[in-house]
């Protein structure tokens, strides 16, 4: 098989998902080739334990469209790197018992060295990159979902041979690997810019960018960065696409609602620029995931809608000396801040680390698509500015008011206590609390004898009243004086989505009321 035709995977190169048991002799027979000096196979079996738990059996679930596309891409890469005669990988889906064959990889090559190396490469990449989820059924009757290995959740485990390196080789050593030249992005227009050129383009191709949030900001940011030819993009978002996302998250398709946004966006970007290495994590950007991912990237882009996550991203970026590009929107306005190692950071601007819920998010405050569209696009520009080493950005916050047609740059000097390594990485004192702030439902609150307090505005509360006995005290009014709280053993605060109520509960905890809780996810609008 020649490099020019690698878009088509011939019968000798096959990646497949199978609901049925894998027929190993039949698969092995297809590897035969007169030019092959041998074959190497790997079998992955279901074992009876995982992280100290006894496992009885497990089930694999795949996102087939992307799994097959990614699997085929891995086989292509292996073929090009190792000069294989043939390679096959079959991964099971559905229920498997202990000892069951979960995945089979077979390769044939002219020499044994290539065959061993290619087999190892394929199984490692498949486990890391192909979107598969594993549900384990434990001896104690419980079960748990294990995110596919690509979403490595244990930060203590050393990162595997970094996948972006493979992607880079793929992009640079074999620039024509994905079909003819005409179907690939041509960077001539941006290379023509003073300050870019082929050297700048090479910097972009070598860069690894982490994008947290695949929503109104993340869609344009990721799209422009993929188009520009960033070597490796990692997309993180725990959410599935919802109809309310579509008016501003315009890379998605209405028919894809219900599917994971990180995976959908990766698939979309791959069609835009097949050269870009794409990695996805369908997971919330918690401290553990940030600790794992941030040091493996050159720039972090915050496209989230939670202040708590923005601060966590800022802190991780500062700790590891990685620049971060942060942005947020509110109705017709946006704010953007580029945080560079040694410069002022988010905590220099907001030393008090304000809580979510006080300032409103898109769901509560409303948003028009072009506002995050503009800010996300601006973030992509700032990432390119950093990577291309164009005229340096300044320390501070850029404010954009679309309705007023104004931008304003507010200079933020680095706070004296923000030393390059430690000043801004101190966690806010109120971030750690043993007792969870949220309760899952009203029943749990009633069981604890809590007084239920609706903190929505009067019109929201009237439109969708709570079905249980409760008091009504809008957040704004309540926060002015917590002494208004009805006497009770404790309180469960309820708002539309759980942000305002958690801000109120946190304020109560700070004021010494240990039994203040927030209803997770809120009561709806």
């Amino acid at each position, binding site marked *: 098989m020649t490099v020019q035709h690698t878009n088509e995977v011939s019968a000798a190169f096959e990646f497949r998902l199978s609901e049925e048991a894998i027929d190993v002799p039949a698969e092995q027979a297809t590897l035969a080739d007169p030019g092959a000096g041998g074959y190497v196979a790997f079998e992955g079996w279901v074992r009876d334990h995982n992280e100290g738990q006894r496992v009885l059996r497990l089930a694999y679930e795949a996102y087939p469209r992307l799994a097959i596309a990614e699997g085929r891409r891995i086989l292509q890469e292996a073929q090009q790197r190792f000069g294989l005669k043939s390679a096959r990988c079959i991964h099971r889906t559905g229920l498997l018992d202990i000892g069951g064959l979960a995945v089979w990889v077979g390769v044939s090559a002219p020499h044994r060295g290539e065959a061993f190396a290619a087999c190892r490469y394929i199984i490692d990449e498949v486990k890391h990159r192909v979107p598969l989820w594993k549900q384990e059924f434990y001896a104690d009757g419980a079960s748990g979902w294990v995110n596919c290995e690509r979403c490595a959740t244990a930060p203590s485990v050393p990162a595997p041979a970094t996948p972006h390196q493979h992607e880079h080789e793929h992009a640079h050593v074999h620039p024509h690997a994905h079909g003819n030249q005409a179907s690939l992005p041509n960077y001539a227009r941006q290379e023509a810019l003073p300050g870019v050129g082929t050297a700048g383009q090479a910097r972009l191709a070598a860069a690894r960018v982490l994008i947290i949030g695949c929503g109104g900001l993340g869609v344009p940011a990721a799209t422009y960065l993929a188009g520009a030819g960033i070597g490796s993009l990692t997309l993180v978002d725990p959410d599935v696409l919802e109809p309310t996302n579509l008016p501003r998250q315009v890379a998605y398709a209405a028919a894809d609602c219900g599917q994971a946004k990180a995976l959908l966006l990766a698939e979309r970007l791959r069609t835009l620029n097949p050269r870009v290495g794409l990695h996805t994590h369908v997971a919330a950007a918690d401290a553990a995931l940030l600790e794992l991912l941030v040091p493996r990237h050159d720039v972090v882009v915050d496209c989230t809608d939670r202040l708590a996550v923005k601060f966590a991203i800022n802190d991780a970026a500062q700790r590891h000396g990685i620049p971060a590009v942060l942005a947020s929107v*509110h*109705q017709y306005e946006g704010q953007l801040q580029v945080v560079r190692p040694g410069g002022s950071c988010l905590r220099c601007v907001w030393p008090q680390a304000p809580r979510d819920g006080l300032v409103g998010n898109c769901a509560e405050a409303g948003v028009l698509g072009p506002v995050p569209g503009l800010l996300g696009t601006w973030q992509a520009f700032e990432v390119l500015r950093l990577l291309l080493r164009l005229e340096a950005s300044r320390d501070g916050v850029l404010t954009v008011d679309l309705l007023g047609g104004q931008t304003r740059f507010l200079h933020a000097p680095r706070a004296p206590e923000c030393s390059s390594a430690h000043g801004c990485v101190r966690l806010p004192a109120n971030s750690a609390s043993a007792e969870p702030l949220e309760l899952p439902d009203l029943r749990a609150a009633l069981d604890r004898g809590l007084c239920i307090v609706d903190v929505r505005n009067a019109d929201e509360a009237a439109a969708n009243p709570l079905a249980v006995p409760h008091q009504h005290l809008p957040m704004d009014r309540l926060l002015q004086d917590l002494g208004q709280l009805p006497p009770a053993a404790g309180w469960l605060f309820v708002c539309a989505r759980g942000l305002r109520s958690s801000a109120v509960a946190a304020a109560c905890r700070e004021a010494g009321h240990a039994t203040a809780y927030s209803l997770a996810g809120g009561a709806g609008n």
Partner: protein
Amino acid sequence: MSHHYTLHYFAVLREQAGCREEQLISEAITPDALYAEVRARHGFTLDAAFLRVAINDVFADWHAPLRTGDSIVFIPPVAGG
């Protein structure tokens, strides 16, 4: 003694003030006193503790001295994405 200031509001402050900018003659000589004055007038719900102030486009302390002619921005954090 009265001073002349130009005030700029962002996000929820702009909503509650009903304008993004206003000229003001005030006795206040620090941002915290000035904010207390306009908070009472516009009914701002956010306490100064949740805001930052910038004087002539540089983030500043709430007790920094103001001079007549200064441009003052009151800005809350925003979180939408």
